[in-house]
């Protein structure tokens, strides 16, 4: 995006030297410090600043160092970013804004480096996108940047080091608003996104060995989400499991459950099961392993749902 759009800039805390996760390594050498720069420690300031730039036609790719730090910018995102187009009758818009931020547990994050606030930021006017792997990440990020709506791109930080894939060079975009069926199956639909996909994949593997055929769907764009793919799958299997790290109460699984039961009520053979984090601040360091919805918990849920 930096290459094709001369008005695109990247900014955030510590992005200049590459960022704490080395995401922006090398960019300043290529594009210069007019286009890749550090901001002082003001999340609210830098997101607002991004919105302002975009409202006059530029493209801003803001990085928030950890999703846990996005909350001072909540005001700007919810009150300004999401409403810009609506309240100006489409005269102005901040579609060029993309906020990239690492989210999710990472094994040693504690309360302020492990949060998954994606549900809180799914508001009308803002798109929320979460990739599950490097190939997806590149395509989805390019789509977000070029999308004429403000987007928040949550990157699973646990996959920064763990995920290895052959990413195609060159420009490619993955469409937003489309979910992807990662695994085909007939017994149960398992829904997740981001880092959870890896866990769900291994749960599905284990379930296959025990004779359960699981259909695994990656939602990819959380808002606005692709209800048609989900609906088609649920009508086929009749059973649903939704899994995410964030707390179960009020997590995005709640929205998806409500919508699915609205559309597929008569096709459901079992209650929709949500395998999620407990209702505690995410995530206490010493309890992280029992807090996250791991593969075994999901396996149990699959068995329970299929045998309901």
């Amino acid at each position: 995006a930096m290459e094709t759009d001369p008005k695109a800039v990247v900014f955030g805390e510590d992005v200049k030297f590459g960022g704490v996760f080395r995401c922006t390594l090398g960019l300043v050498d290529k594009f210069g410090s007019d286009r890749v720069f550090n901001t002082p420690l003001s999340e609210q300031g830098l997101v607002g600043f991004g919105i302002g730039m975009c409202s006059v036609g530029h493209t801003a790719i803001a990085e928030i160092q950890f999703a846990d730090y996005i909350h001072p910018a909540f005001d700007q995102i919810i009150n300004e970013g999401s409403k810009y187009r609506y309240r100006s009758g489409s005269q102005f818009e901040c579609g060029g804004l993309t906020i990239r931020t690492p989210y999710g547990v990472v094994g040693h994050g504690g309360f302020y480096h492990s949060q998954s606030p994606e549900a809180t930021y799914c508001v009308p006017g803002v798109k929320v996108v979460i990739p599950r792997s490097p190939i997806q990440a590149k395509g989805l990020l390019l789509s977000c940047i070029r999308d004429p709506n403000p987007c928040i791109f949550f990157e699973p930080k646990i996959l920064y080091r763990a995920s290895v894939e052959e990413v195609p060079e060159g420009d490619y975009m993955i469409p937003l608003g489309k979910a992807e069926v990662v695994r085909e199956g007939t017994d149960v639909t398992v829904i997740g996104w981001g880092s959870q996909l890896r866990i769900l994949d291994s749960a599905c593997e284990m379930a296959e060995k025990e004779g359960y055929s699981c259909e695994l769907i990656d939602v990819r764009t959380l808002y606005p989400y692709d209800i048609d793919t989900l609906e088609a799958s649920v009508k086929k299997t009749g059973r649903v499991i939704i899994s995410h790290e964030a707390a179960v109460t009020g997590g995005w699984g709640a929205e998806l459950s409500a919508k699915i039961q609205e559309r597929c009520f008569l096709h459901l053979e079992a209650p929709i099961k949500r395998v999620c984090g407990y209702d505690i601040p995410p995530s206490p360091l010493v309890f992280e392993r029992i807090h996250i919805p791991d593969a075994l918990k999901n396996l149990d849920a699959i068995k329970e749902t299929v045998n309901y």
Partner: protein
Amino acid sequence: DNPPAMMGPARVVASPSLPLLRSRRLASPGFLLAGAAILSATALSVFSFLSNGHAQNVGAPAAAGLQARTIGGVPGVGMRQYLSGLKGKGMAAFGGERGIRAKIPSPSAVEIGVEDTTSTQTSVSPLDSETAGALYEDMHLGRKFEDATAQWYQRGKVFGFVHLANGQEAISSGAIKQLRPDDYICSTYRDHIHALSKGCDPKEVMAELFAKKTGICNGQGGSMHMFSKKHNMLGGFAFIGEGIPVALGAAFQTRYRRDALKDPNADQVTLAFFGDGTSNVGQFAECLNMASLYKLPIVFVVENNLWAIGMYHYRATAPHLGDQLPHIYKKGPAFGMPGVNVDGMDVVAVREAIGKAVARARAGEGPTLIEAETYRYRGHSLADPDQLRSPEEKERFAKMDPIEKFRAYCLENNLLTEEQLKEYENKAEAKVQEAVEFADNSPKPDKSQLLNNVFADPKGFGVDENGKYRYQNPDFMAKSAAAGLQQ
């Protein structure tokens, strides 16, 4: 990741030798050695004056009332070399880029600080052997504790994100050791030594780092969340700037108790610690404004260690109008409070500056902003490769080790003998050893603790229609997200 070749402007500020000029002997050779740094810096500053023509106030004696001063110069590096290195390069000396970014100004700027004569507090009690010994032990404890934490982190017993404060002990000890037990402090994620200085048991702090049940927060907090009700340590905040409003609230309740509830004993002071990067966060401005407006008994202490992870202070903060360098202490007067600059590597100076501010606050005269200039010897956290800071910079500040400085000071002024110093060191090391053993042998928290403390009642989730805690209902665990946790 090449470390930048920049030197950065020097910050030689008040050192112990200046107040001493008034009342102590000048003759001892050790004193001269200790004073050599400031004298040579003075000479260098004079040199820079001659070559740059800036007005300066070199070595102004400390007058009554709060006074701040900054003296430019680059100690330890030949000024001539430094200046000639800059010649013709302009901004290139600081990394070479141009464009829409913060410009780092010339290094030899010298400003006169803010002088506040409204305070009725003149000076703190002079250091005696006992106080000096306590200070020394506390600084040594802090250093050894942090080193032990690093060691056990490498061995896998301490985990998560750990931020160590090696090099910043003078501020912690100098400031906190003179507080009363009922005074409050609010810190950042670099809070281990603040907790220790405030009186928290090193055993409990280490157990918290090891995430054991006996930790100061029952293992639920971790490195960045050291809280102690007993010692009035209000945390431990991972998010920068979030502790300042909390400190403000604590200060407010003191004022409220005194004025509204007419409690004559309500004169506790709150200290809010934060870093240089935090002075750019919105909450900083909001809190300084309110503190001044309500005349709260709070002291804002900025531990300026020049780096906010990888963001250099001079590139992150804009200077005051007319200045060439950013000075956080100058933001104080804008919000209606005195701003004081102090050498954070000098525990005596820190103690004096903060002591005056605390006395001022206790007397009801309002808040103070203190900028203590220091350095962190380790990286931002134990996961930080620390490649951005130049070796020259690190070396320069390593020479200003606060513990070494204070050691020399104590010996010079016959506050403590070599044997006594050694004894304090041994005591500190024994405490750390004891802490590690205690933490290692402590049990891990039970799984049943997972849901504790979400809400006020012990296991969260409230009270049911029968007036009993929900978790006491045998069906509760079976139907809720807590299923599977029962032990």
